[in-house]
């Protein structure tokens, strides 16, 4: 036991002191914040860029008042120049395009005959904004024709908001559904990334011991299984350590960033609303979301997360360790990587595809039971409320499989670490199991 502790400590320190590890630990959050800031900045600046659109209006349905400038579109009336002349003017100036409204008798005809000319194909946002403007105007006209009282119509407007709750009386909302999806998908994705990144790290560490030929010295002091276990745990420790640093750094940098550059994250989606109103709304929204989050059984979600996370990581990293032991260098690992990555990918895709729409459907339930995908899929399902027996069964299957796999992996490992210069295939691995 004492030796296991020594191995874990060495593996942890070896990872943490590594230059690449240190650089990645401190650079990744900066890169991420940089990316977020860049995206925010770009979308904000493109939002603020106003389009310069000319119009030629031959119809009596529209007047000057219908082409008022908005935040994003600046209109210019070229009706007097006539369509042909206007086209030439627009082509040779910095206008973004020319909208042409012909003279038609009926509203229906007019609606399907409005044209837009431009040098470059226009943005979807611009077109839909113009369509909205024109549609609402024509709708009003149509209502007038049909003798519909606008005031009454406005009054008749009803908005249904279905209040959701389960039979034990817990209220939920659409927002909370979004939060559940976010938590579920987030934790499933984290598990997958962690397994791929740190599993590969375990594998490289085994290969390093093989190529540096220290392995035989070590296993003359400790059991190969102890070494493998120590390596898996030590690497996980380094990974968790990195995650903790990232979380702290991310929050710090985000706060500093939002303070310094004034990037208002909430403002990104709702920039048309006046600032003071917006702030109030954002506050309310945040308050509401926070309340909703606290309504979730966070503690049990966290506990399940830790259990499935550990189970999945131990399962896969022992396979990674066995692969590392079987080969002489990293290029030989390719043939074994596919069967490891595949179930992880399937887990994530099945999760994204089915859990969102139908968290308790057959596909999602089955994949949350299969041990190689359950750490991902079950974690995605848990925020939506999974019966305890299902979680327990899934975890039980995971533990059984994990024990079996680590037993097999340890067998391959103890043979493989002392085997040099052999091209290994699956048949060979099967033979090792019997040594």
């Amino acid at each position, binding site marked *: 036991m004492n030796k296991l502790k*020594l191995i874990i400590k060495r593996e942890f320190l070896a990872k943490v002191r590594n230059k690449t590890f240190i650089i990645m630990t401190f650079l990744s959050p900066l890169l991420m914040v940089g990316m977020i800031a860049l995206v925010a900045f770009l979308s904000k600046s493109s939002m603020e860029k106003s389009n310069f659109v000319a119009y030629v209006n031959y119809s009596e349905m529209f007047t000057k008042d219908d082409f008022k400038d908005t935040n994003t579109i600046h209109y210019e009336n070229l009706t007097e120049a006539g369509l042909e002349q206007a086209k030439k003017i627009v082509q040779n100036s910095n206008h973004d395009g020319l909208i042409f409204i012909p003279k038609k008798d009926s509203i229906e005809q007019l609606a399907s005959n409005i044209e837009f000319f431009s040098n470059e194909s226009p943005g979807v946002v611009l077109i839909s904004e113009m369509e909205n403007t024109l549609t609402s105007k024509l709708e009003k006209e149509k209502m007038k024709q049909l003798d519909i009282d606008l005031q009454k119509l406005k009054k008749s407007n009803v908005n249904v908001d279905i209040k959701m709750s389960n039979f034990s009386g817990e209220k939920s909302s659409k927002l909370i559904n979004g939060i559940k999806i976010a938590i579920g998908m987030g934790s499933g994705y984290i598990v997958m990334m962690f397994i791929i990144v740190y599993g590969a790290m375990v594998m490289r560490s085994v290969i390093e011991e093989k190529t*540096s030929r220290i392995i035989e010295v070590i296993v003359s002091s400790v059991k*190969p299984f102890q070494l493998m276990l120590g390596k898996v745990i030590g690497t996980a420790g380094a990974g968790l350590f990195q995650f903790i640093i990232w979380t702290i750094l991310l929050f710090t940098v985000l706060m500093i960033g939002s303070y310094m550059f004034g990037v208002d994250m909430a403002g990104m989606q709702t920039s048309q609303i006046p600032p003071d109103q917006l702030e109030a709304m954002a506050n309310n929204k945040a308050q509401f979301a926070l309340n909703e989050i606290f309504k979730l059984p966070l503690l049990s979600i966290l506990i399940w997360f830790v259990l499935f996370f550990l189970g999945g990581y131990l399962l896969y990293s022992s396979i990674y360790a066995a692969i590392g032991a079987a080969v002489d260098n990293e290029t030989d690992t390719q043939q074994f990587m596919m069967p490891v990555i595949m179930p992880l990918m399937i887990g994530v895709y099945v999760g994204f595809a089915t859990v969102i729409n139908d968290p308790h459907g057959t596909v999602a339930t089955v994949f949350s039971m299969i041990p190689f995908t359950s750490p991902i899929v079950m974690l995605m399902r848990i925020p939506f409320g999974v019966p305890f027996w299902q979680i327990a069964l899934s975890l039980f299957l995971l533990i059984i499989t994990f024990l079996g796999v680590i037993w097999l992996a340890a067998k391959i490992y103890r043979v493989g670490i002392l085997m040099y210069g052999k091209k290994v295939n699956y048949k060979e691995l099967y033979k090792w199991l019997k040594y």
Partner: protein
Amino acid sequence: MNNILVTEDIVKNFGDFRALNNISIKVPEQSIFGLLGPNGAGKTTLIRIINQITLPDSGKVYFDGNLLRPYDVHYIGYLPEERGLYKRMKVGEQAVYLAQLKGLSKAEAKKRLKYWFDKFDIGAWWNKKVEELSKGMAQKVQFIVTVLHRPKLLIFDEPFSGFDPINANIIKDEILQLRDEGASIIFSTHRMESVEEMCEHIALIDRSNKILDGKLTDIKKEFKTNSFEVGLVTEDKDVLLKELNEKFEVKPADFRSLEDDLKLNIKLANGETSTDLIKYLNSKAIINHYVEVIPSVNEIFIQSVNKNS
């Protein structure tokens, strides 16, 4: 004399391949035991079984009188042929780690390491990374790590590879001193002159079977052919050679000599003794050189392996 290590009928199979076939050896206490054999004979497998890296399919290993237990790894020091260190770890830190894995406390490991580092005059390497060391330097560190926990049994697999002659000599002296201080040593090598020089007992393994073992002097007696190497000063070499050819089995020999003498290797028939030969030769010529032909380990090795195939 007690045996520090005894193996009884060790069998080990890898799939269909039998790597060790009923291997029984006895390693006497406080002596150097040469484990010899051609490449792929099974020496490393046997050594790994002694180190409990591999488990035998059947057979028993006794260490210091008892069946080998997991804890016995603390009493064994092993320098494998395929050896190395963590390249990116510092020398001192790494040596302490490996010593701790052998059961030493951190403080004790540091104390003993200081002694050895001073002895080899390599104290300045403590904070260097292993990748900054030359191969010979790393081998020295490796040697220290192997012997640091003062094991009762030391297993050296090609201990001199990677050393220049001067350092190889230093290591050889250290091994001899360790034996004098009470350690028993299993020594596996292809350098027969080292075996000749250092080993008191040997075992020869060829293609999974033990084909020879025992005290080196006994084995040599067994392999000697009752032959003598002689240098004879005479006036007419051809006449003498003809006479000798009629009486004995004679082959030409080669050794250094100041005289232009007749150099011969004379094999006696059973029953004939050295005294008879000397008497006879003395009457024919001046005996300038006379020595019994003792088979070298090299010859014994080649002869045994060829006979086995």
